[in-house]
């Protein structure tokens, strides 16, 4: 898949004679990759014709939507505590290794567990959360699917995030369950230790020559787990601090002078993209947020409030590129190689990074974020930004709920 991405990125300059997306209501502006607006293109039309959404949304306006998404998670949870299926349930993603569909089920399950953990507590939600934690601890660990397909890393990444959060949840008092969480957290870490690339960080594919330890890492995979690595170190699951140190260094190398973060993290010298590169600001809207959040959470002094604000401003200013890529069924087919599944990931980490800003200004940012979360929510409370598969619905709904939960005080 990384080779597909490379191919898509390589093709991007060839598309510069194609009418390029824009809103038509002013220059795109804001970054070094300003693109002239040209009319007539279907995407341009889509941008122009997109339904109006409120510019801001208060907590009260958003709370019902959050409840709907949590209700969807509770009501669709299976008896054994899991969601969805471990098998391919749509044909738009044929071609991955069989194990990968299970790995995606586990990783989306971890996200749903995290969403339920953060939810305003009700007996149903707490019970669902506990069932979800038990399944996450009891289910078998995913294996490497094939030489190139190492998607099982996703299970390790979000599995470690979810178990490390569950491990510090005071509501989980059952000693057996706590022991299971501890055991499974360490197992997820061992999975990640196995798939950590030599230069630091993680991704989900390997390139020839294939090796037991993969060689490709991405900024966003690495960033999303870094705060949890620190938590796992505190829990005693990780003894060697070198893993987090290497991951941090790898992510810091991804930071480009223009403010974007590169997609790849396993390189010697970062290259700033030109034209429609995914490494431009417009192709990096989600990676900027998750990277700022990861580095900022760990105390990187270069991640100042101003830098976080700038990243968020870019996020809203160029949000249309996430909008038009959402629900496109071919990965990276959007402008600047945006993929549909960038959307909710970007919004969740935008919500996370907002909470690194001074408290007084957080709500205003959350109010700007919420409309973009609620506008895509289906009437039954579910969300997806890419395909309609079970794992995407589970992950999408969980990410939407996690995003809405940020900045939303508990119901009195």
């Amino acid at each position: 898949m990384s080779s597909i991405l490379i191919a898509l990125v390589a093709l991007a300059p060839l598309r510069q004679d194609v009418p390029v997306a824009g809103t038509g209501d002013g220059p795109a502006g804001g970054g070094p990759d300003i693109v002239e607006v040209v009319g007539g293109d279907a995407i341009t039309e889509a941008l122009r014709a997109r339904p109006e959404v409120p510019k801001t949304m208060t907590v009260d306006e958003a709370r019902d939507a959050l409840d709907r998404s949590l209700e969807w998670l509770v009501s669709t949870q299976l008896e054994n505590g899991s969601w969805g299926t471990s098998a391919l349930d749509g044909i738009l993603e044929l071609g991955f290794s069989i194990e990968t569909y299970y790995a995606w089920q586990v990783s989306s399950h971890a996200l749903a567990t995290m969403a339920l953990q953060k939810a305003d507590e009700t007996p149903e939600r707490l019970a669902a959360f506990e069932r979800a934690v038990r399944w996450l601890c009891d289910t078998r660990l995913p294996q490497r699917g094939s030489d190139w397909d190492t998607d099982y890393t996703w299970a390790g990444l979000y599995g470690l995030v979810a178990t490390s959060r569950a491990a510090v949840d005071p509501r989980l008092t059952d000693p057996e369950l706590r022991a299971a969480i501890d055991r499974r957290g360490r197992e997820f870490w061992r999975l990640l230790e196995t798939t950590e690339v030599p230069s630091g960080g993680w991704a989900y594919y390997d390139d020839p020559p294939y090796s037991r330890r993969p060689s490709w890492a991405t900024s966003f995979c690495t960033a999303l787990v870094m705060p949890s690595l620190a938590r796992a170190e505190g829990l005693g699951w990780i003894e060697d601090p070198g893993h987090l140190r290497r991951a941090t260094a790898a992510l810091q190398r991804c930071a480009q002078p223009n403010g974007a973060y590169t997609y790849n993290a396993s390189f010697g010298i970062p290259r700033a993209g030109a034209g429609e590169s995914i490494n431009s600001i417009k192709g990096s809207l989600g990676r900027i947020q998750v990277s700022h959040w990861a580095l900022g959470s760990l105390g990187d002094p270069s991640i100042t409030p101003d830098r976080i604000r700038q990243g968020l401003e870019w996020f809203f200013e160029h949000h249309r590129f996430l909008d038009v890529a959402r629900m496109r069924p071919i990965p990276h087919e959007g402008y600047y190689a945006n993929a549909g599944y960038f959307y909710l990931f970007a919004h969740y980490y935008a919500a996370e990074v907002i909470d690194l800003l001074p408290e007084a200004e957080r709500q205003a940012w959350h109010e700007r974020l919420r409309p973009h979360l609620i506008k895509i929510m289906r009437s039954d409370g579910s969300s997806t930004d890419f395909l309609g598969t079970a794992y995407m619905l589970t992950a999408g709904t969980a990410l939407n709920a996690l995003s809405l939960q940020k900045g939303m005080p508990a119901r009195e």
Partner: protein
Amino acid sequence: MLRSILLPSLALFALPALHGCATPLAASDSDASQHSAIATDAPDGDDDEKEDEDDAEKKAHKLAREIAGMEWKLEQAQLDRTATEIDVALDLGQAEQAVVDAGVAVEEAALALQTFTQVESAHELDSSKLDLDRSQTRAVQAAQELAELQSMYDVEEFAEKTKELVISRGQTNLEMAQRSLDLQQRSHALLSDFELPKKTRALQREVDEAKRKLKRAERQLEKARIEAEKRRRSAAHEIEELELDLAEKRAEVEA
């Protein structure tokens, strides 16, 4: 050239036949005239006896020349027979090789037909069937993908334009897949109902033609053998005739 080679041997044949003659018969015409001049210089008297001797000498000379000519013809005939033997051997060899070649051609043609009907035809048919199945699968998948996309976008309220774009693309994909399937079905039918039988027939005709050529080559060989025998006999017969003539002539000299 031939004459210069034959003259010494002619002399050899002539000498035993003219044994006892006062003058070598192999002498040239100038020698003969010289000999005649010498005879003219003989003393007068007894002219009749002298004339008789001259007639005998002339006759002997004539016979010697006839014998020499016959011996030359005999030798020519013997050489011709040798040449004939070589020609016959070459012709027979060529005819025999033509039979072998024609036989190999029959085997090759039969093998080509057998390989085609038993292996290649099935391979081409299977390959075409695989392409057909792929097209069939692609069409089914395109329909399933479209159904999946339609189902997915049914509940999407916000991404209307994206929905139109993606559904339209899905419909185009399905249409292309169906057209591709239709084309593949026709190609498969063309292959199985026309092209493969046509090629089978062509290969069968090549086998038949090769067999016909083999028969012809075998008949040509028979003919070549007959002609070879005929030419051998003819050459031998000519030599026998010449030898008989020569023997008679030599007997005439001795008598």
